[in-house]
Structures are given as C-alpha cells and as structure tokens.
C-alpha cells in the first residue's frame, strides 16, 4: 500500500492545488477497487503470494505520474507541464523571496543613512518598482520553463505504442518515498545545473551585463554592477559553480543523497563562503573607476558624482546582500550537518 500512497502523492504533487484533493480521493478509491477485484479473482492465496507485484502491474497500467497528471490537466497547450510543475513552483517562490529580500535590504540600507539624499531616491525607486520587478522576474521564469518544456516535449513521440512502452518500462519502485530525507528532485537538479552554467557564462563572458541604467546630472547610461573588486574574487565562485554542477550530476546518477555527496555539498558551501567573504570585508565590490565611466560615455562631472554618491551606497547594499547570503549558507550548513550526523549515527 505504501507504493500506492507514493504514487497518489507524486501525481497530486504535479497538479494545481485546486484539483489535488478530489483527484487523490478518486485515484485512491479506484486503485483500491482494482486491487479488491484482483484479490477476488485470484483468490486469497495468490494475492497473498505476490501483493507487491500486482500493485506494480496496476500502477504501470495507470502510467507514470507525470503522464497521468498531464491527462488531468485540460488542454495540451500548457506553458509548464506536470513534469516541470513542482520545480517551476519552487523556483517561482525563490524568485519572489529574493526580490522582496533585495527590496527590503535596499530600504534598510537607505534607512541606516537616512541623512543620505539617496535614501529617498532608493525608497521611491524600490517601492514603485517592486510590483513590476516581481512581474518581470516571474515572466522570465515562465519563459525559461516554457523553453525547457518545448525542448523536452518535442523529443517525445506521441504514439500509442510509445505511450504503452513508457508505461511498461516505468518502474513504480522509483517513486519518491514519502518524507525520505535522501530523496532528490531530478528536475530541480537539472534546472540548477542550467543556472550554474548560465552564471559561469555570464560572469566569464558578459560581466558588464549585470547592472542598471542610471540617471544623474541629466545623463543616462549603463553602469555595470560587478566592479573590479567583484571580478577579482570570482575565481572561487567558478569553483563553487563547477562543484555544484559535478555534485548534481553525481546525484542524478545515484538518484539519492549519500554520505559522500552530502560531504561534497558541505565542501561546496565552504567554497561559496570563502568566495563571498572577501567581497563583504575587502575592497570595492561595485567600484567602476571614474576613468572607466568616462570611457563608457559619462562626463567627468557625472563620473565624479557617481563615484562619490552612488557607488558607496550600492557597495554597502551589495555587501549587505552578500552578508545575508553567507548567513543563509551557514544556517543551511548547520541543518545539513545535523542531517548528516543523523545519517551516520
């Protein structure tokens, strides 16, 4: 019966919340009816001999959870399908939390130096843009998942034989265990690999792409947020990114967390802390040298004004964000060490 509950949970997890309760109830009742009918047909002895085999056969007939969940969602032209839906929801929540966190950090940073004229500007800017920033970020997340959806679904051949073959080759024993601490989310790991590769490319090839258009003294130009202080420390970040890719590939191969992968995961966290710490305590992170600004189209007066007023503020803000990230990593390390100790003992 555990397999049945795992199956129902996996299907339900891929459905919109409003459908879940009803579908779970109907699925459970239908599976139990089918099991009872089999027990009646086979006789008690045969049923008792191989109950698990029959459950496996029955679940195969219902099909892989992603396939069944897809059938429950009306229409076929959805942007994000059931296979990606759990990862999509998780990413969406993270994006919203990060944006709100940055906005709050901006206001707090501004409040610390309330006499700073930038406080009012920062407050007005972040508050007026909060809604549009969240909508824009959500749009990007939908776009990325839609592309992944297109790429993965176009590689599938939708024929009855192919569908039957998928159902029959699917092994219900691979269903995620309920409350299993070693369970991995395959889609989430793949999305993380894609993000790590994108970050490596972004930092290595397009470091100036991370920034914002700034207006001052009647001039309006692009300012790269990652200044020399940040770029100098990015070597260790690459090690962390590559380490994360390697870790995720290992997890995808083993299909669950093991003690070595947990230790490796902790080591990567230490690398990220080592990469971010000098950025919090060391030299200018943002720092666009006035000469660089002039080379990028700013007048000398505007470059001076930016270096004097804007950059120290942005620098403080960015250091605050990095410090928060470090605290988050340390906290998550503590919880993971506790999990690891429980695994070992």
């Amino acid at each position: 019966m555990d397999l049945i509950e795992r199956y129902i949970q996996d299907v339900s997890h891929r459905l919109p919340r409003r459908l879940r309760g009803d579908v779970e109830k109907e699925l459970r009742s239908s599976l139990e009816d089918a099991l009872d009918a089999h027990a009646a047909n086979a006789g008690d002895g045969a049923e008792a001999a191989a109950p698990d085999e029959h459950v496996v056969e029955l679940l195969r007939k219902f099909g892989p959870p992603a396939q069944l969940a897809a059938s429950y969602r009306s229409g076929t032209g959805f942007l994000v399908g059931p296979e990606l839906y759990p990862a999509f929801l998780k990413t969406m929540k993270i994006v919203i939390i990060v944006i709100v966190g940055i906005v709050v950090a901006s206001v707090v940073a501004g409040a610390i130096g309330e006499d700073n004229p930038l406080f009012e500007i920062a407050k007005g800017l972040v508050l007026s843009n909060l809604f549009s920033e969240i909508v824009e970020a959500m749009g990007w997340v939908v776009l990325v998942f839609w592309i992944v959806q297109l790429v993965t679904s176009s590689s599938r051949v939708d024929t009855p034989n192919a569908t039957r073959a998928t159902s029959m080759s699917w092994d219900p024993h691979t269903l995620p265990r309920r409350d299993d601490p070693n369970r991995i989310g395959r889609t989430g790991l793949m999305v993380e690999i894609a993000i790590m590769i994108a970050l490596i490319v972004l930092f290595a090839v397009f470091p100036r792409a991370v920034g914002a258009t700034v207006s001052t003294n009647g001039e309006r130009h692009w300012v790269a947020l990652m200044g020399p202080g940040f770029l100098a420390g990015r070597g260790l970040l690459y090690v962390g990114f590559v380490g994360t890719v390697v870790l995720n590939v290992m997890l995808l191969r083993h299909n669950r967390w093991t003690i070595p992968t947990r230790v490796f995961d902790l080591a990567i966290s230490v690398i990220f802390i080592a990469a971010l710490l000098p950025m919090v305590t060391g030299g200018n992170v943002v720092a666009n040298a006035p000469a660089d600004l002039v080379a990028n189209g700013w007048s000398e007066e505007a470059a001076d004004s930016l270096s004097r007023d804007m950059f120290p503020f942005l620098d403080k803000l960015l250091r605050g964000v990095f410090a928060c990230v470090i605290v988050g990593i340390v906290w998550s390390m503590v919880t993971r060490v506790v999990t690891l100790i429980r695994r070992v003992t």
Partner: protein
Amino acid sequence: MTLELRRGAIILAVLSQLTKEHYGYSLRERLSARGLPVPEGTLYPLLRRLESLELLTSDWRVVAGRPRRYYRTSHAGKQLLKAMETEWRVLVEVLNGLLEAK
C-alpha cells in the same frame, strides 16, 4: 492516428454508458466487458474533463466504507450524445461504403 480515432469513440461510449450512473471503476469494467477496454490513465482524467465541460454530473457517496464518485450524463451531455450518435451512424455507413469500394 488510431489514437485520435479511439479518443472520439471513447467519449461517445462514455456518454452512452453514463445515462445510467457508474463510478469510475464500474464504468471501466462495463466498457471492458463490452469490448472497449480503456486504460485507467485515460478514463479517469476523461471523466474529469467531461464533467468540467458540464457533459457529466457527479457526486461522492460512501459505499461499503469506500468513498466513490458516481457519474451520470447531464442534460447537455445527452443532447451531445444524440448529435454524436447520429453523426457516428452516418460516418459508419459512409466509411463502410468507402472501405468496401477501395
């Protein structure tokens, strides 16, 4: 293509059998006994979709200690059934003629 053909036929079969109420499993058994086995992963979502289109009505009842969802073809479903039945009979006749004359 055979999948597309079957899909339309299954809707017609479901609407026709649910003029008397059934729960999912009993409907599947009935269709299967009459020579139209429908995979579980197709039937249950289809019932849900037909209900959302208001072609079926349903209600939950606890029978022998087990909650079951009973479905029945709605008034709109019966009207559609009538139209589909007429269309089906015409198609069968026309296609039989075409296939025999190939």
